[in-house]
């Protein structure tokens, strides 16, 4: 029973970790994913309360996050500002937009099939986790079997060399932030369905958890190294950890403390394992 719970709870973090690892592979970082989750939750919930229908609400949520993803991406790639600063800006903008749009209140809507998405299981596996797994497979294909995949590593490793080969570096860099934004919207929609309401602070802390998952999963902070599959796995592991701490009676603030500790310890372990298994030539 608890395993199902862990998979359900890790879905949002797992997909955010996938997006974050792509961004980090290009030697970037996306701090805005957490507040994008909140904003998408508010936009989707707000529209679910209107007469436009569920699909329109979902679509608008995805569009909103994609817009901010492209916005960050274009500024980072064209104006060449540091990703940390740009996405910090987007993070604050989207976080406050979420609060402004809902007026600081939790949004509810008349119950419909959107609420049941998070409650359904497919052969015992939560539907949400199935959706995330599909994204996982697509990302693995993207990374290993498309030219975009090699360019993601190339941008992180030697952007100028890639540009001199005639690759449209700016376009691909923007696409990576777009993907990260898209994934944030998927996470936001899944969470909204799970809690059956639109919450302006639901995404708080998710950017930190996603970065932690990617880092523990071995994605290098200077880009070009690592495999998103491990980020995905460590997202599930982090959820397991918080879940375990919860069962042991620790409250949410203590769980954050635990993630912080595991981040530092995990990085330390990574370093040791790298020395043992892969001696640098």
């Amino acid at each position, binding site marked *: 029973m608890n395993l199902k719970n862990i998979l359900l709870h890790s879905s949002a973090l797992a997909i955010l970790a996938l997006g974050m690892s792509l961004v980090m592979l290009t030697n970037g970082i996306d701090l805005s994913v957490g507040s994008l989750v909140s904003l998408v939750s508010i936009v989707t919930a707000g529209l679910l309360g209107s007469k436009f229908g569920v699909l329109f609400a979902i679509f608008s949520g995805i569009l909103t996050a994609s817009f901010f993803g492209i916005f960050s991406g274009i500024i980072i790639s064209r104006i060449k500002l540091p990703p940390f600063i740009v996405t910090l800006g987007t993070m604050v903008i989207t976080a406050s937009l979420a609060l402004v749009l809902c007026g600081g209140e939790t949004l509810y809507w008349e119950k419909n099939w959107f609420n049941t998405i998070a409650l359904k299981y497919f052969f015992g596996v939560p539907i949400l986790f199935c959706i995330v797994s599909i994204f996982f497979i697509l990302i693995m*294909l993207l990374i290993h*079997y*498309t*030219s975009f995949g*090699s360019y993601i*590593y*190339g941008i*992180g*490793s*030697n952007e*100028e*060399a*890639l*540009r*001199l*080969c*005639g*690759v*449209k570096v700016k376009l691909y860099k923007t696409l990576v932030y777009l993907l990260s934004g898209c994934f944030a919207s998927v996470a936001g929609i899944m969470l909204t369905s799970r809690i059956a309401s639109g919450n302006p602070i639901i995404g708080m802390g998710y950017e930190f958890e996603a970065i932690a998952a990617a880092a523990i999963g071995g994605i290098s902070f200077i880009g*070009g*190294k690592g495999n998103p599959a491990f980020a995905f796995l460590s997202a599930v592991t982090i959820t397991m950890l918080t879940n375990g701490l919860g069962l042991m009676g620790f409250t949410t603030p203590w769980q954050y403390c635990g993630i912080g500790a595991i981040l530092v310890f995990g990085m330390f372990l990574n370093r040791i394992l790298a020395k043992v298994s892969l001696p640098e*030539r």
Partner: protein
Amino acid sequence: MKGNFLLELKGISKKFGGVTALQNVDLKLNYNEILAVVGDNGAGKSTLMKIISGAILQDSGKIIFEGKEVSIKKPQDSLSLGIQMCYQDLALIDCLNISNNLFLGREISEKILGVADILNIKKMRDLSIQHLKNLGIVVGNIYEKVRNLSGGQRQIIAISRTVYWSNKLIILDEPTAALGVKESKKVLDLIKTLKEKDISIIIISHNLQHVFSVAERVMVLRMGQNAGDRVIKEIDGDEVVKMITGAEFSGQELLG
């Protein structure tokens, strides 16, 4: 043939901040010719070549390719004209394997389900192995990451990529800098075979011995300006050194 020259540069100037890197530099390259560009450090050789390849943009001056004036603003422009450059330090991507690096920017992919372009990894691998074999280059594993190769191996891979995609003009920036004697000879032989394929080559080198063994014409730059342009057969190393240094030293003093 279109135009008298394959490539003609007229009055190229470039400043980096307050530093004048190139001032009114001209260059002419015949069809099917090997031209050596020599000069001291900071003479502007690499800058000039990067302008031709579109890595940087000139402040003023014209580029005429096959008799037509062209504007080269980004690397894609020069690549589509048929100009391929091998950069000294910015050639390869460390975290990708040899095969990926050889096909960087020109991956072979196939449409699957009508939408997704999926890489044909096997075909790229086979072509890479074939190509390296033709050039007589031995690599253990085509999937080895470039990061793990030695300096000389990396350079050979970078040159072989340039050669693989060579079309009308290739530019080699210090092709023999990190290479041993045997490998240098291999590269010089390679340059000679390229000439037989009707390709023009510009080679930048500090090594005058190598310049004299392959080039037909030598162009000297000094402090960002033209300092001489001579046919190799009519000149000796001493004179080239004098042109490079501005005759501050005699060649005998430098060459020992």
